[in-house]
Structure formats: C-alpha cells, structure tokens
C-alpha cells in the first residue's frame, strides 16, 4: 500500500469526481490540483474557469497560487475579468463549482464568512464569499471540500455564504433566485458524501479503507444518511501520488496537516 496524506487523498478523490468534457470553476488550492490531476489522467478534455477572468488556460507555468495568478492565465482561450467569467457561469457554462469552506451543514450550505451570531462584531472573521457564493449559486453542480471534523460538519452553520439546499425544502433554491442544481459531493480524506435526492440531505457514499460508517458519523455533528452498502474510497496509486506531488512541486497545498 502506498503512503499518502489527507490532502493527497482529497485531491485524488476530487479528481475522480470530475468528468471529461466538462468545465469546472475552480477555487484556489486543492480544487486546482484535483482538476490538473484529472486532466493528466482520466479527463484530458476537462477545462477550468478562474474567477479573475480566464477560461480554459493551459497551465504551463505550473500550479497557480491564486485564482488571479498569472499562472492561471497562460494560453487561455478567453481572458476578461470577473464579470466576463461569472456572467458565462450565470448563463450556464460551468458544470461544476469546486469550492472549500470552514463549515458545512447537512443540506450542503457552506460558511466561509464568519463565526459568531453578531455580524457587527464577528468572533472570527474568515475571508468572505469571494467567488464561492456565486459559484455555488450558478455552476450546475457544487463540489465542496471541508476537513472532516465535528466543529465543521455542523447542524447549523454560523453564516451561510454559499447556498446549498437551504432548509431542505424542494423550492429553496428556486425561491433563492439561483440557477444551479446545487450541492453534488462533499469531499474529505476519509469519506465521500453525496445528497439524497428526495430529502436533499447529506448521505455517505464512500469511506476510506479500514473505516466503518460509525467512524465517520462520529466526526459529523448531524445525522448522516447511511445506506446499507457503502463503497470503499479508491486510493491513489504510486503514479497518482507522483503526479500530484509534481503538480504541487512547492508543497503549498499538499503539505499541510488536518486536525484529527
């Protein structure tokens, strides 16, 4: 068995979730690494959108450190600004949003704005929506990365930054005035989650080898839907790891640790 860290597992799983011949709107870090890995393996015709304004770049200078990085703009088919790419997205160009966040609830609502109840005195201020709120609203499917910890998989997020299925009601997104279908996958290093079609609640799709559904439920602060049969997550091969590490040569994103 090959040795990989949680970030490598997340990036690899993200790659596996993406499909060929689609367009993914990527956030900084692991989403870009996942998309680059997918392009180099099973999805050579996967294309990326970067929110500062590029569509379908060829990343020949290496891994962009920012979604406005020069590296995200080399040999693109189309370069404008934020309005350019977000308007394409609002129109329906982006198949996937690939975002991160600090908290997620059972309906896939994501917080990346703040902790606390008082907006005018924010206990912990995070960066804010950035592109995520618009991506989760208007890309067709949203893929979310949140570290698998109880304080992050919560019954109620402190602030909804990126809309999921709201309170779970069937017309929540319609009443919110957003266009995309909504949350599709939540990726962690030990479990892959999806959403139940009728209740729109998070369900367990796959778990890492050697773990049981209870191990995952213990790290989640709300009740998960657990089907009778849960698949085992596919692990990266030595070749996948070589590729991933080659993509993040400087170790900016794959080197960090997750609190267990």
């Amino acid at each position: 068995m090959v040795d990989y860290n949680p970030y490598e597992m997340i990036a690899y799983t993200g790659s596996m979730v993406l499909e060929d011949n689609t367009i993914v709107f990527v956030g900084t870090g692991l989403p870009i690494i996942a998309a680059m890995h997918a392009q180099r393996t099973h999805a050579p015709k996967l294309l990326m959108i970067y929110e500062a304004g590029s569509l379908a770049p060829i990343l020949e200078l290496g891994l962009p450190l920012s979604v406005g990085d020069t590296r995200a703009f080399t040999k693109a088919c189309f370069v404008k600004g934020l309005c350019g790419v977000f308007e394409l997205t609002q129109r329906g160009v982006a198949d996937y949003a690939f975002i991160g966040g600090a908290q997620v609830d059972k309906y896939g609502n994501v917080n990346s704005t703040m902790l606390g109840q008082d907006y005018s005195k924010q206990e912990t201020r995070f960066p804010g929506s950035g592109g995520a709120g618009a991506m989760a609203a208007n890309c067709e499917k949203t893929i979310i990365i949140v570290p698998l910890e109880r304080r992050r998989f919560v019954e109620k997020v402190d602030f909804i930054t990126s809309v999921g299925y709201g309170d779970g009601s069937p017309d929540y997104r319609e009443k919110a005035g957003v266009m995309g279908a909504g949350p599709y996958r939540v990726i962690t290093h030990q479990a892959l989650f999806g959403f139940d079609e009728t209740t729109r609640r998070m369900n367990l799709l796959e778990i890492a080898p050697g773990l049981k559904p209870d191990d995952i439920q213990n790290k989640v602060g709300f009740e998960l839907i657990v089907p009778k049969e849960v698949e085992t997550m596919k692990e990266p091969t030595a070749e996948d790891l070589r590729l991933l590490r080659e993509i993040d040569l400087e170790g900016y994103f794959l080197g960090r640790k997750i609190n267990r």
Partner: protein
Amino acid sequence: MAERAWSKIKNISEVKPIERKFEWWGPSPEEARKNLVSKPKGLRDKGTSLKEAVKRYVRDGINLGIGGFVNTRIPVAAIHEIIRQGAKDLTLSFQSESLTAEWLAGAMILDENHVSIKRAEIAWWAYEVIGLAPMLRYLAKNGMIELDDYTNYGMAARFKAGAMGLPFIPTRDHGGTDMETTNRGTMIKCPFTGRNVYLVPACYPDVGIIHVQGADKYGNCRIFGPLCTCPEIASAAVNTIVTAEKILSEESIRQYPNLTEIPFPMTDAVVHQPFGGYPGAVYGFYWFDMKHIRMFREICEEFRKTGNKDKLEEYYNRYIFECETPDEFINKIPPEDRQEAIKSDGGQPVIL
C-alpha cells in the same frame, strides 16, 4: 411594479439578521453622473505625480474603490501614497483584496488620526494560500469596521452597474444566504417572470485606484492578463487615478483601439510608475514576491496575537513613511527578489 420578496432563509444559520436602511456609501448615480457631465471632455494631458494625484482627489470620508484582485495587479504605489498623506473615515469598496486592504487597516491600527476605515463593501479579504487577514480579523472582532458582504460577482456587478449609470443590477446569487439577511441588496419578484431575483445596489466610488500595464497621457488604458474589475471600477468612480508600468504613445493607442480597456473620459490622473503593483504580480512584468508578502503578514499576525505594535511600526516606517516616492520602496526590496519576480512571470505576451 416590482414587489419585495424573500427567499426561504430563516433560522437556518446562527447569525442574526440585521436591518439596514438603504443609503449610498458613496455618490448616488445622479451625483456621479453630474460630476462626469461637468468634466471637460477634450483629450488632455493627465500626466502627474502620484503625490499630486492623491493630494488632489483623496479626501477624508470618501469611498475608495481598489482595483486588482487579491494580490494581482493591485495599486500598491497609490495605497502607499494614501497612507503617507493620510485619509480618515474611508469606505473601501472592492471584490477581493489582500495587501492593499491590510496595509490600510494596519495604518489605522498604528494611528487612527492619520488613516481610518469606517466601513468596507466587499466580497473577500485575505491572503489565499498564505492564510486569513490578521488586520481584518482584528478590526472585525473589535467592531471597529462596518462590513457589507457580497459575492465576487456581486461586487463586480455592482461596479458594472455603476459603469452603466444604473442604480442597481439583478444577479442570480446572494439569495438564500446570509448575505441576503445582512447586506444592502434586496430580493424582488421579477416583474416579467414572477420569480425571485436578487438586486444589488450599484457601487460608485468617489475615487478609483487602478494599476495597469500601459496607458497614454490622456488616460486610455491597456490591460493584459486578468482584467479583474478594473474597467468597471474606473468607469464607476467619480475620479480615477491610474498608475502604469509603461506610458504609451497616442499613436499606439490609435493603432490598436480594440485593446483599450479603459477609455480616456473615465480617468483623471495618469502616473508612470514601474513596479507600481509590486510585491503583487503584474502579468507580463513580474510575479508575486511571496517573501515580502509573507513577511508583512507575519508581522500583522504577531500584532493580532500579542497586541505589540513595535514590528508593525518598524515595517511602516521603513517601507512606507520613510519613502518619499514609490521608487524608494522598490529600491528597498533586495534586487535578487525583484529579479526572481521578473523571471517568474515567464515573459507573458503583452502588446505595449
């Protein structure tokens, strides 16, 4: 008649909704138009020094629109000059910024009687790969800044509405999130489809500060790589200060008019400022100086954790207050770091 509407957001999250009575955080559309109409429209030489430009347009209490995106093509030289001259009760407006906003916030923490931020209408404020923004965290936690959150598209669309002379623009985001329960936008029932659609108010800054690759003396600007929201900010702002890596000839502008991203009527001051976006990246010129960016963030983070301002003060004295001009700041950066930043751009193709 459009009807006020709501999404179904209620008791889904912990944060308490806030009621804001709508007010413009800068000029109204009518004021912005009146101001533009009153300007002489002929081509005129707008070349000046940064010192003069900031002195002329930046005042206490203005809405300052900051160009660029995170640390890409950010108006570093203009921000440093504003900090040197001082400006109080600022409203900041931008989609995503990092160093520029942190520098202003740090100056406020050092001396509130010299620089202060009253409020910020924004989508994102942090350092991406390097981490959260220590100065924003400090101001937000202590209730020292009023915030108004939108998405990146929301802020870009708000500037675009300003650039179009509109009072608002409909978007397909914000609804169903706590931006709907806290920001100054509003949901309505669309008068045509009968479905909910979210309106965000236009944003007209008093002053826009933009760094570009090339501009002529009349203020026609060329931008390569990400446009960010610079064309929209320049057009929405009552006055726009442009710093440019290179000054172009009128002949060049007229030879390739399709390349003009900001037309001359939307700019008021043009400053030739090589390295004007450093230590941020400028496509075709230089990449990030991650070393300097990290150094400044670490100093801020140390202040946030300990409350000790010594290193912060030292940084501001050395890199901002003791520099008479932006060139002096650049000369304090080790030449090998600048060379590395130039090399890392990989010579991206620009037409200048």
